[in-house]
Structure formats: structure tokens, C-alpha cells
């Protein structure tokens, strides 16, 4: 069932990482991503790994959860690995058979890529695991608020994101229900022909669309009733407050980044 997919990855908790200011967490994640891509030496990746490991330990998120978030990308990893292994030339050949040739450079690049992507996924899922979607949206809205000056509708975008997040579970549930209802009327979703499958989608998409429009219009009225009038003059209940921990974390991230750059320059 579609319902079983975990969406909105937030993993509630009260760890040091959970308590960090989401704005800082986003900036730190940005630094972390940059660190992974700038570093082209093994030590750089090791530094990245240490950074994630530290964050993971502090966040008290079970390692199982991280593995779970990496699992879906394994096929992509395998595919690109094979691709890299066979098509990167240069370096010493390690294995040769007819037209297939694998070089040490290819192995090196492939392992590098795999580790880099795994670290990337691990780091970013830590961000979503420890930060509620609403805090994330909030933080993005504030980080982007300087853009308001050049007429970017930052508040509206953030509002849209909040509503989308709010309605994802509702619409997933609804899709499940519509699929069941149409199956009960004989829709064959397991048909083998492509045409049959396309045909079977129509009775699901149309009701879903109609329902989304109805929900949107009802929600709009409800928001109007609660005095919604855009971002102007709006206040927030949750004030984002940065603490010493935030600055310390940011400092550590910058330190890690600096060492990566330093190693790069050395080589």
C-alpha cells in the first residue's frame, strides 16, 4: 500500500542536534555538501565521515534509520558504479578481458563516488530526521527573506510548502481509497498491456484531481476565516533563537571545511 511509504522523514527527539536552530542546520548542511564535493583526497572523505559520525552520535538517531534512507539509492549506486568501472580509462589496468578493462583509476573514482554519495545522503537525511518539516520551512523562509527586497514572494512560497507538506499524507490516503474503490468496480491495475494501464489511471487521476481542487477551495475559505492575508504584518509563534551551541556547531563545520580546503591545497 502506498500508505506504508514513510514521508516527512522527521524523527522526533530532543537531542543536541534536534535542538539546534534550523537555520544553522541548513547552513551547516550546505557547508557539509560543499566539503564533500570540494575534497578530492581520501582524507577529505574521512573528514566528512567523521563529521557525519559526530552528528549522528549527537542526534541519537538509530543507525538503522540512516541505512534505511540509503537503501533506496542502492540501485542507482550500482548502476553508476558499473558505468564508472568500465568506462573510465587511464591509470594502471587491473583487469583485462577482451574489450573489458578496469583500471586502478576507475576503481579509485568509483569508490570515491560511492562513499561521497552515501555520506551526502546520510548527512542530508540527518537534517530531515532531526528537523520537523515546519521548522525547515520556517528556516528557509527566514534565510531567504533578504530576497523579498527583489520581490521574490518568499512568504507565499513557504506557505505553499507548508500546505503541501500538510496535505501529502491526506492525499496519499485518498489515493489509496480511490484505487480500492475503482478496483471494486473492476478496474484492472495489473493488466499487462501499456494501453490498459494508461486507461486504468484515468479513473484514479480524475477523482483525485477533483478532490484536490475541492480541498483547496475549502482550505482557502477556512484560511480567509482565520484572517489570512498574506505575509504582510504576520508574526510567528515560534521564534527562532540561536544559542551558543549553534555558533559552536557552525564553527566546527567551518573548521572541518577549512581543513578540507587545506588538504586540497597541499596536494
Amino acid at each position, binding site marked *: 500500500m502506498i500508505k506504508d511509504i514513510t514521508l*516527512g522523514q522527521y524523527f*522526533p527527539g530532543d537531542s543536541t542536534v534536534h535542538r539546534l536552530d534550523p537555520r544553522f542546520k541548513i547552513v551547516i548542511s550546505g557547508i557539509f555538501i560543499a566539503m564533500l564535493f570540494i575534497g578530492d583526497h581520501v582524507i577529505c572523505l574521512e573528514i566528512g565521515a567523521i563529521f557525519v559520525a559526530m552528528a549522528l552520535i549527537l542526534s541519537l538517531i538509530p543507525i538503522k534509520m540512516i541505512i534505511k534512507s540509503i537503501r533506496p539509492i542502492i540501485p542507482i549506486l550500482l548502476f553508476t558504479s558499473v558505468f564508472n568501472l568500465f568506462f573510465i580509462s587511464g591509470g594502471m589496468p587491473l583487469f583485462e578481458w577482451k574489450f573489458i578493462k578496469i583500471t586502478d583509476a576507475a576503481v579509485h573514482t568509483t569508490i570515491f563516488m560511492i562513499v561521497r554519495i552515501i555520506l551526502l545522503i546520510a548527512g542530508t537525511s540527518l537534517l530531515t530526521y532531526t528537523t*520537523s*518539516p*515546519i521548522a525547515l520551512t520556517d528556516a528557509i523562509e527566514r534565510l531567504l527573506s533578504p530576497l523579498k527586497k527583489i520581490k521574490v514572494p518568499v512568504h507565499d512560497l513557504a506557505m505553499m510548502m*507548508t*500546505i503541501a*507538506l*500538510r496535505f501529502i*499524507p*491526506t492525499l496519499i*490516503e485518498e489515493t489509496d481509497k480511490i484505487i480500492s474503490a475503482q478496483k471494486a468496480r473492476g478496474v484492472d491495475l495489473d493488466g499487462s498491456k501499456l494501453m490498459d494501464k494508461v486507461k486504468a489511471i484515468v479513473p484514479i487521476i480524475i477523482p483525485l484531481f477533483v478532490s484536490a481542487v*475541492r*480541498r483547496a477551495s*475549502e*482550505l482557502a*475559505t*477556512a*484560511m*480567509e*476565516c*482565520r*484572517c*489570512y*492575508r498574506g505575509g504582510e*504584518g*504576520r*508574526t*510567528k*509563534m*515560534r*521564534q527562532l533563537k540561536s544559542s551558543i551551541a549553534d555558533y559552536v556547531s557552525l564553527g566546527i563545520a567551518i573548521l572541518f571545511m577549512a581543513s578540507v580546503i587545506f588538504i586540497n591545497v597541499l596536494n
Partner: protein
Amino acid sequence: MENFAESVNLDFKYDGEDVLVLKDINISFKQGEMTAVLGHNGCGKSTLAKHLNAILLPSGGTVYIDGIDTKDENRIYDIRQRVGMVFQNPDNQIVATIVEEDVAFALENLGVQSDEIRRRVDEALKAVGMYEYRMHAPHQLSGGQKQRVAIAGIIAMRPRCIVLDEPTAMLDPKGRAEVMKTVKELNSKYGITIILITHYMEEAAQCGRIIVMDRGKVLMDNSPKQVFSRVEELKAVGLDVPQVTELVYELNKYGLKLDTHIINENECCDALLKLLS
């Protein structure tokens, strides 16, 4: 008691249509009253409700809320803050992904300071008995709980009046009972004027006053006892009466002479005991 809300010769039709959805409606609501509005689907009761907080504006006549003309554009948010609305589908009125954020929504829109919002949100959640659920996501709640969150989101604005448009229609009996208990408490404890649109006659019987609408007009406006005693007229406009009232009506049709103003179980029991002893 002063009139909190009042409609004077209110007419309404949708743009580009000829049919009047509301015809010459003159009603008023006193502060602290609890009124049920009955009528079959399409009788105009929801349209009337939307006039009470300036979501719709009259095509003819005037609606006053706390003395403010709803056509006064400058005061539209004064009106909406005074009259809150709760709708039928609990899912389609919750905006935020966390309960307490949703309750804060209206206050944030009104530009209230953050510590004041915090205080009022906690207060509102406690008033509807949802304080322990403040960190939950809406989809983790039952229908009745979602509806109570929606009510909390309204009372955080400290309105003088709440209009509920079939708040219990999509709920199970447990959820319905929860919502009714909450609504009655808001009325008795805080003196909030309640206007409850419903299809459940037993809920209407718990209000102090019932308005029956039919084809855009007010057909009856009286106490539950008076309204429910007019069984035939109610059935003619597609409505029901509580089962106890119907029993009395049926027995009287047979030739007995029971009090036609019986609307709840205890009254019915007493009457039957007297009859049979």
C-alpha cells in the same frame, strides 16, 4: 441582552445568477445564545453562515456584527476575529503540520506578539482538551480530535461568536459527542455565542433556540420544544424530529393526549411512566 449579530432584509444571490439563495432574512443573535440552524441541503443555511463573518456579502440588505456593517472593508478582520467559523470537513481546515502551529495560525495572521500567541494557544488547546496532542501531526488524530483542533484555532482569536457548519457530519458517534461537549462548554463557561448548523436533531435539541430554514427563508425561529412540536411541517421540509418526539406524535395520532413538547429521553420516560401507571 444586546444583539451581537443581526441581519436586516438580507438578500443574496451568486454573481450572474437570478435565483435568490437567501430571501429577506431578518434575524438576530444575542450574545451568549446557543442556536441550532436546521434545513435540508441547499436551503441556504451555509450561505447564511458565511454572511456572519463577511466571507459573503449581502446582495441586498445589511448584516451587522457587533454593530459593524460587514460591507465595511476596513473592518473585515475585526469581524472575522469576532466571528470564527468551523467547517464540516476536519481535514480541509487545518493548515499546519503540527497541531499547535495550526492553532497559532489566526493569531500569526493578526500580528499578535509571539509570547502572547504562545499563551493563547496553550489556553485554547486546554479549553478543547487537546493540550497533550499539541505536538502531533493532524493526520495522526481522529476526526473528533481534528475538529477540536479546528475549534481551538478559532477560540485562540478570542471570538465572541463561533459558527459551526455541520461540524459533526463526518464524525463517528464518539467524535460527535466530543465536539458537542466542547461546544456546549465554550457556550456555558466563556459565554461564546454559538450558531450550530446540523442535521442531527438530538444535537439541535440541546440548543436554546432553533432556526429552521427552507428555500432561502426562515421558516421557524423558536425554542426546541416549540419547533419540534410541529412534526408534520418539519417532515414536509425534509427534516426529522428526535425519536422521542416522534413517538409522542405517533401516540397522539392514535388518540392519546401526551405533551407534544417532549424532546429528550427523561421527559419521554416520565410521560410514559405516568401513562402506564
